[in-house]
């Protein structure tokens, strides 16, 4: 029987939730890396027992952790002894250095800061890790200040794909309230050279040549809170999702507005429809039904918790515009949590499992595509990220 593993990153450590294919009884292991902020954990599609984790701290900076046994044991790749002169260089898995080489064609030194002035790029942390679809040793990292890095040796060393920052609009990118983070990385299963990323607050970008060159894909986004609401960049994209069954169709939760694109991001149109509020962070797509999507509407601009004290996932079976609230098993009074951008995931079993974590420390799961929910665990630290894996 198939199994499910859910990787949970929280403000104070990581947890791993496991169940069989029925998904009604769960084991909770952890905390791993107790006390550290765990921004994201994700397993390799090519080897599900290879898991990468971003461990970070305001005091001690960035650490990359790697497991090769499904999270039972962990290692810091590149943590070997410093080599003697003449020996092969050791890895430095937490060394993220921005590319300032002449090969980029221009110095990539500054971006726009909160006050409108130009500010140097400064590495702060890894927000998102995206393992390759085919190679367990290749993994991408989206970092703050926004940039995309790639490792081809299991996370031991990292190199920036500087064509993203260098494509031309980089100096116009400015941080959102949470920082200038590259938080979304989507690999296209039908085209190994196509990749999508999103940045708060710059927008969405696409490469069609494996990361060498990039272009903004924000046509159709409209953001009232920026000087030019239809600008090429500057939009606070919160998350983007794509069904591997229908590459090229993308769904976006922006700071305000839920949108879709059916041409790989070249054009977007709003599908917020009858949502109670079109602000939110997460968005995800059903594993088997490419027109079934999920969001969690959030009250904003300032509150950042669910409306009316009721935790409700909204599902559209028509790719947007028409939404239904999913509340069975979720608290419907006195609930004031948020669901952060990387804190929802689906598994690939049938029926599709849907999972999300809250800033109140609950992780909810549905084994029936969202019709009903149960709390897998209730009292974790604030949940930053949730990633589900279906295992044979």
């Amino acid at each position, binding site marked *: 029987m198939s199994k499910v593993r859910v990787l949970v990153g929280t403000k104070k450590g990581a947890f791993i939730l496991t169940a069989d294919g029925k998904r009604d009884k769960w084991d909770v292991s952890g905390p791993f890396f*107790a*006390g*550290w902020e765990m921004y994201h954990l994700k397993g390799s599609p090519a080897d599900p027992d290879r898991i990468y984790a971003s461990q970070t*701290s*305001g*005091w*001690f*900076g*960035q*650490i990359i952790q790697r497991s090769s046994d499904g999270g039972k044991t962990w290692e*810091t790749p*590149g*943590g*070997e*002894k*410093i080599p003697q002169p003449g020996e092969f260089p*050791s890895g*430095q898995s*937490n*060394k993220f*250095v921005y590319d300032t080489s002449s090969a980029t064609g221009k110095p990539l030194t500054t971006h726009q800061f909160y006050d409108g002035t130009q500010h140097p790029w400064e590495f702060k942390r890894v927000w998102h890790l995206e393992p390759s679809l085919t190679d367990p040793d290749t993994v991408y990292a989206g970092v703050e200040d926004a940039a995309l890095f790639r490792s081809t040796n299991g996370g031991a060393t990292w190199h920036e794909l500087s064509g993203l920052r260098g494509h031309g609009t980089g100096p116009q990118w400015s941080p959102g309230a949470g920082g200038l983070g590259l938080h979304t990385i989507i690999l296209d299963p039908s085209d190994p050279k196509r990749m999508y990323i999103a940045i708060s607050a710059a927008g969405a970008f696409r490469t069609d040549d494996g990361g060498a060159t990039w272009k903004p894909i924000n046509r159709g986004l409209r953001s009232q809170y920026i000087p030019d609401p239809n600008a090429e960049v500057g939009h606070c994209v919160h998350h983007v999702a794509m069904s591997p069954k229908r590459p090229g169709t993308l769904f976006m939760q922006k700071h305000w507005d839920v949108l879709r694109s059916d041409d790989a991001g070249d054009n977007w149109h709003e599908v917020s429809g009858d949502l109670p509020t079109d602000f939110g962070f997460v968005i995800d797509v059903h594993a088997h039904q490419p027109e079934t999507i999920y969001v969690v509407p959030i009250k904003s601009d300032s509150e950042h918790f669910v409306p009316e004290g009721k935790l409700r996932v909204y599902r559209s079976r028509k790719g947007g515009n028409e939404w239904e609230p999913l509340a069975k098993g979720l608290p419907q009074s006195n609930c004031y949590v948020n669901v952060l951008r990387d804190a929802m995931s689906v598994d690939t079993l049938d029926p599709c499992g849907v999972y999300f974590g809250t800033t109140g420390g609950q992780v909810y799961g549905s084994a029936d595509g969202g019709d009903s929910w149960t709390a897998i665990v209730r009292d974790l630290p604030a949940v930053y990220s949730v990633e589900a894996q279906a295992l044979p």
Partner: protein
Amino acid sequence: MIRVVIPAHLRTLAKVEGEVKLEVAPPITQRSILDALEEQYPVLRGTIRDHGTLQRRAFLRFYVCEEDWSLEPPDTPLPEPIASGKEPFLIIGAIAGG
């Protein structure tokens, strides 16, 4: 032997308990101690000093014989009690919150 006390999170990361003891060739300075510490525990590279600039991370302080040496030049020789191992070199995380 040079004695070094590191924050609890870094002890976990380096898989050590209590004080760290290091063989450090003279001169005994902040730089020579940190170089030796990172050589013995490579996982600590980047957690105390920036990888590139080797600047102290903002929320860490270095204490020597009950004095804050964080802003002293890294190559200044440290006092005899540190060099002889009578006193530990302290790496302390800033306390945040209330």
